[in-house]
């Protein structure tokens, strides 16, 4: 019987809705175990790993492969006993601490403290960008961040370059038409190009453009998917801080979610969760520290590091997407000089 120390609130309510059911083991890794529950995956993680939506963290260092748990094996969930059993190994989450992974909920729960000034937020984003360019894995979408050519494009980033630029246009337009984003020049933009405010069409295009990125790239979670997760993380962060409406964030998320069939189950699961604003704890921590009034560069970078560490290039790709969407917001907010 292995005790679990943490469980995400989403996993808890998901399992609660299931009661006693037989599921199957989707995949087994040294430090993670994925259980297929209908259309979704519940993941059990080894000690010390970051909590993400629909995950449970073991209180001990666990090697799931060594435990003899096999892909396809039967898995039993008993919510009343707070226990999951796979191949005779039981995981007990009755004492697990509950962690919210929904940034909108976490954001609303936090003690309202002073917010950072927009220029400070902006300069922090710039600091993170420099950090990622210096320390990130250049094998995924990182080269897209680099406008001066100092990081070489690889096969994947070259493929995605035009596609992400298309997505950027959609996001900027959608932000500009958001009710929260009121600038003195909004009316001028509407008058100048009325078709740009056909927001519904813009969302259709966005769904299509997300689809042209989903599934592309190296890794178990293809780089394009991680990029999308990062984009959604930034979008929901903006919503959580009240800079765009939750409605806009939700619709952007929907556009991404409609494409999850284009990728594998594991990666798709992350996109699905992100499309509802459900993110891993380390991404939430980073997002919150961006907007905190008082945040030192060291603190910021140490939080960015935790995200950078995911997988081999996943962390880099997520941060790339996050920065991409953050800059899109600033571009939407600014006025291009004529």
């Amino acid at each position: 019987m292995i005790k679990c120390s943490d469980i995400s609130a989403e996993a808890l309510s998901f399992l609660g809705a299931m009661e006693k059911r037989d599921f199957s083991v989707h995949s087994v890794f040294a430090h993670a175990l994925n259980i297929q529950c209908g259309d979704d995956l519940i993941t059990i993680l080894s000690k010390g790993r970051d909590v993400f939506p629909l995950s449970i963290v073991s209180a001990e260092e666990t090697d799931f492969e060594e435990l003899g748990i096999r892909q396809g094996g039967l898995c039993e969930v008993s919510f009343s006993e707070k226990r999951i059993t796979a191949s005779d190994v039981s995981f007990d989450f009755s004492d697990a601490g509950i962690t919210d992974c929904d940034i909108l909920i976490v954001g609303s729960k936090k003690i309202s403290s002073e917010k950072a000034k927009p220029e400070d937020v902006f300069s922090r984003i710039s600091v993170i960008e420099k950090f990622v360019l210096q320390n990130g894995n250049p094998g995924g979408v990182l080269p897209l961040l680099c406008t001066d050519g100092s990081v070489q494009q690889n096969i994947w980033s070259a493929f995605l370059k035009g596609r992400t630029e298309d997505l950027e246009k959609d996001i900027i337009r959608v932000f500009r038409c958001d009710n929260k984003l009121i600038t003195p020049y909004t009316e001028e933009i509407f008058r100048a190009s009325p078709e740009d405010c056909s927001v519904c069409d813009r969302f259709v295009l966005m769904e299509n453009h997300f689809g042209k990125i989903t599934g592309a790239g190296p890794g178990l979670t293809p780089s394009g998917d991680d990029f999308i997760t990062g984009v959604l993380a930034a979008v929901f962060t903006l919503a959580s801080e009240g800079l765009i409406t939750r409605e806009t964030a939700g619709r952007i998320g929907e556009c991404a979610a409609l494409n999850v069939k284009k990728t594998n189950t594991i990666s798709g699961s992350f996109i699905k969760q992100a499309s509802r604003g459900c993110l891993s704890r380390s991404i939430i921590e980073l997002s919150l520290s961006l907007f905190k009034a008082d945040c030192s560069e060291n603190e910021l970078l140490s939080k960015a590091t935790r995200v950078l560490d995911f997988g081999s290039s996943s962390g880099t790709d997520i941060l790339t997407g996050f920065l991409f969407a953050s800059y899109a917001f600033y571009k939407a907010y600014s006025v291009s000089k004529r």
Partner: protein
Amino acid sequence: MAKSRLNELFEKELIIVSLGVDTFYQDMKKQGFSTIHVDWKPVAGGNEKLANMLSLLE
């Protein structure tokens, strides 16, 4: 007198993090000690792009 922190350390298992060259880590791993190696790199600083982007905020 309360035990000093260092005296307490003498009674614990040493769990070592090595930062920098990994030969020391390899040696400790060979002997079976609890150890982890950090492939340490310096953190970036500086902000040229900030200047560029800030101009867009005007």
